[in-house]
């Protein structure tokens, strides 16, 4: 059973060409398309990013599964050192969690129309993310084991390094969002997909860290 149900997305475009849809099919052929692509896709984009983050989470899941299996099955070799300090990563965890809050604040401020306040919160988020990375580097330099010392050490560096890569990418994204939210930039209180995408990604990176902290440092 088929019937011509009006397409709400293309309604505005069709009203222009409504006079002669049958006589000039090409007019309706192109017009609804452009509006669909210009305005109707914010949902699909965030949804697409969310799907990508599921895929990304599966990469981490693979690494976690490998690490946990190594820990369960493979004995630590004689004389091998796998001592991790706890203070620095704990501080780092707090920093990342706070940065999620500051990013959320930035989004709320923008939605209220307070662009300047939003940009301050964004810079604070960048500062927290950068401090986290600095802390991670500091930890790397002070650890008693290197990348190839033993199986656990290798997995430790692979996991924290892969996550650090994500944080670095996140900081760069937030800086781009900060730049685009300047007066006259692409991100405005009404059109802010970039900010939402960066925020979703940042929360994801924080969430992964919490799991990573639990598995790599506490276990």
């Amino acid at each position, binding site marked *: *059973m*088929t*019937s*011509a*149900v009006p*397409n*709400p*997305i*293309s309604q505005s475009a069709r009203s222009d060409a409504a006079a002669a*849809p*049958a006589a000039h*099919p*090409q007019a*309706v*052929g*192109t017009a*609804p*398309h*452009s509006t*669909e692509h210009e305005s109707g*896709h914010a*949902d*699909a*984009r965030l*949804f*697409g990013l969310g*799907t*990508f983050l*599921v*895929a*990304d989470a*599966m*990469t*981490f*899941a*693979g*690494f976690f*599964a*490998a690490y946990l*299996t*190594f820990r369960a*099955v*493979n004995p630590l*070799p004689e004389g091998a050192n796998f001592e991790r300090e706890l203070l620095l990563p704990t501080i780092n965890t707090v920093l990342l969690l706070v940065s999620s809050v500051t990013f959320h604040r930035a989004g709320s401020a923008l939605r209220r129309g307070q662009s300047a306040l939003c940009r301050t919160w964004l810079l604070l988020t960048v500062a927290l993310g950068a401090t986290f990375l600095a802390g991670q580097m500091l930890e790397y330099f002070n650890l008693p084991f290197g*990348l*190839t010392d*033993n*199986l656990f050490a*290798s*997995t430790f560096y*692979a996991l924290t390094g*892969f996550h650090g890569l994500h944080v670095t990418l996140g900081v760069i994204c937030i800086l781009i969002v900060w730049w685009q939210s300047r007066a006259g930039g692409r991100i405005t209180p009404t059109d802010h997909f970039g900010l939402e995408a960066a925020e979703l990604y940042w929360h994801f990176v924080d969430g992964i860290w919490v799991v990573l902290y639990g598995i790599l440092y506490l276990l």
Partner: protein
Amino acid sequence: MTLASPSDFNPPAPPGLQPQGWLRYFSFSLDHKVIGLQYLVTGFIFYFIGGALAGVIRTELASPLSDFIPRQTYNEVLTLHGTVMIFLWIVPVVNGAFGNYLIPFYVGARDMAFPRLNAVAFWLIPPAGLLLISSYFLAGGAAQSGWTAYPPLSITTPALGQVIWILSVLLLGGSSIFGGINFIATILKLRRPGLKLMQLPMYCWAMLGTSILVVLSTPVLAGTLILLSFDILAHTGFFNPALGGNVVVYQHLFWFYSHPAVYIMVLPAFGLVSEILPVHARKPLFGYTTMVYSIMGIVVLGLVVWAHHMFTSGTPPWMRLFFTIATSFIAVPTGIKFFNWLATLWGGKLALNSAMLFSCAFIVNFVFGGITGVALAQVPFDIHVHDTYFVVGHFHYIVYGGTVFVIFASIYHWFPKFTGRMLNEHLGRLHFLLTFVGFNLCFAPQHWLGLNGMPRRVAEYDPSFTTLNQVSSVGALLMGISTLPFVINVIASALSGEPAGDNPWRALTPEWLTSSPPPVENWHGEAPLVQHPYGYGEAAGILDIRAASGQQIWTGDQ
């Protein structure tokens, strides 16, 4: 059948700076139909390369001694054959080619959700393929560790070829993930208003299930291969027992992707067959709802059966028990689908054209491959035939007898849509006959060889296996010859085939309710709302395609 002649009108100009004419097939086109055909043609080029490699393997195996190519070259050839066929032919074609071409039509959209990402996903494939093939000509040669790249073999063979292999598979995996994200978003978010999920053509469900598998399992392979490359380049010991590593963890992570990869190759074929059979049997697809649930059942079960590839890898008894049971269970949803197809054919007005012949042969081949699959799920049997030609035979019945037959069926079915011209039916039947005989001649004897202990991936074998290996090689030769009528047919018909009209099969799925080939944005007017894509044989009054397409209208008898 009567078809209203297309009214004369000028197709809409493509948006922006997109090139037109044949040049767009070499461009970064954003049109899902162009990208679909780019995938299809690229896939076929790699199919011929992979087929030539298979020819080298079968020539070597025509005699028990390693006398055709050096043993090392044989290892490179079998690695390249597997990798090219899986990652550059089957996955891109059943997902990328037909998915991109058909899914936007089926959901009533003018393009995929993310056209640019779509083009990026395609353009990752040619460089990845060239990279892989070129590694053969570099110092040390191509990877030699099979498409599984098991360590420690993959760590001890020449590093350059293996690293290029990893890089190539990472690029192809990335392409596959981008495609999967695009399909999920398109099917779930871009449906035409009024079109419900349970009204979608079955191929949409197959692609939704496949894309879920792609998104969940491919990243695990990517992560694993990155760790493997660390083992090769940085001398870490993740999977290197000499450095305290664990090879079984690699196998688990690898098969967590690579078993679902079988469903990534086969589920879309299930979907395509579900589109082809109702059209040529003039009957509704039997058991739509059970079809949907069995696809989703295969997706869920497909994620928890991977260790049945590892029954000889020291897996503990509880793991063997679990994975045997889970694997056997997959036969249930798969069986439901097969009975649905048989019921679709039952009592139909069958048109035994090339598309239908390939589809029916798919059912025969896949049932045989499925039966050997259930046999392989049983631990005692699996241990007996592990790493023998029985597994090779089983796998090719699934992937060639299953998926490749469906790819050919789909080309005979959708070629009129792609080009507006029909393929030659006589050449099509010749192609079918040669392929069907050649395929069974090539792979059926391998079951016997495997049962009697002929190992896979070895260039030499016991002389008592000679006769059946020669039969198998003759079959492979027939398969090679069978591509000739196909290629001639496709090229000649594309240039000067009989004009097909817009809907030569009198089909009801949405891609046929527009011109052939379709205009840039799929429909000249509003996208049709097709709520009964399989409404064959229903009373004429129920179908009002005139209101649906508003342009070319099928007013035929049913």
